[in-house]
């Protein structure tokens, strides 16, 4: 266990599956939405809650709201491919062997 390398850290982050049970186990129940990370998707679900200041404290107004993936998805592909082209990166293929 002592010899965790950054490469192992990266693999662990890519394999992450965050469940409610795990969050509760860490003493932070429901701190965020449940999500899983994969090779192709490093972004989680993208959900957020809306809060409001009532003068003395922040109050939660909603549960986790989802974004519109049909809008953000194509923009992600466009921008990341532009970066890959500019910096000469060969995108890796994310089909598991």
């Amino acid at each position, binding site marked *: 266990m002592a010899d965790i390398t950054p490469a192992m850290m990266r693999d662990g982050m890519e394999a992450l599956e965050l469940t409610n049970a795990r969050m509760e186990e860490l*003493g932070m129940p429901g*701190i965020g939405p449940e999500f899983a990370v994969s090779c192709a998707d490093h*972004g989680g679900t993208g959900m957020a809650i809306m809060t409001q200041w009532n003068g003395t404290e*922040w109050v939660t107004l909603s549960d986790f709201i989802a974004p519109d993936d049909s809008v953000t998805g194509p*923009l992600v592909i466009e921008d990341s491919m532009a970066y890959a082209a500019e910096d000469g990166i060969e*995108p890796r293929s994310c089909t598991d062997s």
Partner: protein
Amino acid sequence: MLRPALPADQGVLPGRGTLAAQFFLVWLFNKVPWFYNYSASGQINAPERTILGMAVTGPNAEAWVKYLFCFAFVFVLAWVARNLTRGAMGRQWMAIRDMDIAAEIIGVNPLRAKLSAFAVSSFYVGISGALLFTVYLGAAEVGEAYGIQKSFLVLFMIIIGGLGSLFGSFAGAAFMVLLPVALKVLLVDTMGWDTALATHFQFVIVGALIMIFLIAEPHGLARLWALAKEKLRLWPFPIEWAGHRDTTGEEAPAAQQKEPRGQRGETRLTEPEPLGRTTPMKSLATGGSSLDTAGLAFADLMIPDLSYRTGPFAAGGIPFSDGYQDYFALLNARDGGIGGVPVRVVECETAYNTERGVECYEATRGDNPLVYQPLSTGITYQLIPRATADGIPLHTMGYGRTSAVNGEVFSHVFNYPANYWDAASVMINVLLDENGGSLEGKKITLLYHNSAYGREPIRTLETLAAQHGFTLNLLAVDSPGQEQGNQWLTIRRDRPDYVLFWGWGVMNQVAIQEAINIRYPLENFIGNWWAGADHDVASAGAAAAGYRALNMNRLGDMPVFAEIQHHVIDAGLAAGDGTNLGSVLYTRGCMPRCWPPRPSARRRKSMAWPTSRPR
């Protein structure tokens, strides 16, 4: 861009002109997209270039190659400078500098002399600016990399080093670059002070030194060095030199100190030098002071914390860093670390400055760091190619480069749980919900920090505006965001239905106060998750009621806070003063602990791919 350090009563116009140009050009480069290559973030990147088969720019370039490349420039340019000042042009410059009216009388054309001095120094500065960007930084954002702070830094190098001396430029540059490193080693590593305190002291010391040098020793370090050599030549290393034997006893020292003109070229009276070749020196001296555990690389888990406890964004940086560090302290105190291995957090102060963020990365990357969390979009853009080349993951949760969600291109960057384009989309979804599913004809203004961070949502909002039929107005606020009067006048005039806000640090409080001042309905003023913390609204208090903000983490008390209070804060192990426990940003700082490392980190091969999410 710099202004040549001409005497105050002469050449004021070029000086003022370049100062004005500093601000005008920054505005221009922001305004015209051609200058930043139409990139979504406003940043330009240096592509990889090679010389003799070795990379000089880009993340794969080795340090010694970069050093030699810059050194070659320094060598050639210093040689040229030395000879220029000894030639006719140099004599003309000296004549104008010493007494321009007399020089004009003897036939030196003042306009030509001043213009040529200006031109030559600008040429040198241009070369160092290009080297700074391509070799050292790798990516640059206008206004940050070449802001007024950089100009001040170079000016201080020259003043402290000694005006009119080639050696002085080098001495001043070495001094200004090594000073923060020396202070860090002395104050933080040796004496155990807080990094924020050490940073504050750096400002105090530099300011004091400038005053001292200008008053007591205007010829700077170069003169001090010349005097030191003088004294050392008399005692304890007496040497013979042309025309004097050291048998004259006590007379010689006094006479020599008054008239060191026999020396070769160290005195101001003979050797003025053009200014501004200090950047290559800079790239030498950075990059490596805190590697105190070289022999223990695998005995603990090293987590670097690139934090900012000073500067205009500290109000946000402090609680986040406290949360980040306190959770690891809890694990160490309560569980003996992770899987029995203690966690060692190494903090490095960046002041939200991109360049210092890169320096902190360079200083810590050799210590087997497991993951970087720079809490700054600007720094993230710089670290993406470097961390990827070094094989170290970057966790940029809810900030950074949004398109990094595409793991096929960005193998080492992780944005979860959410990113800025998601935030923009969620805001619009909420507004659609409130408006019966349609935003047709509405006016929405985006008030944003004029940086890579603030520009992130623009493309998404433009797409959504086209899709849903609302008008989008963009209002940029220059960093750090304390001046927003004009923008709020525009908002008052335009009366948009909603104002979406991408601010951070001091910009948040100012914006909220301005909104209150113009009586903008606060429930229509919606900030992103970096603009919805306690300190942003605390000073306005009840007057800010109604202001809304997104959040990527839930609020409120959690069992972990009681544990942190008991094991960490009460035991005196807290990173800060413990007052931030449970605040919005502190909670967010604890969130990364939800994620690896944990003992069973090798599950990937056996896991089935999740089916969903068309990204």
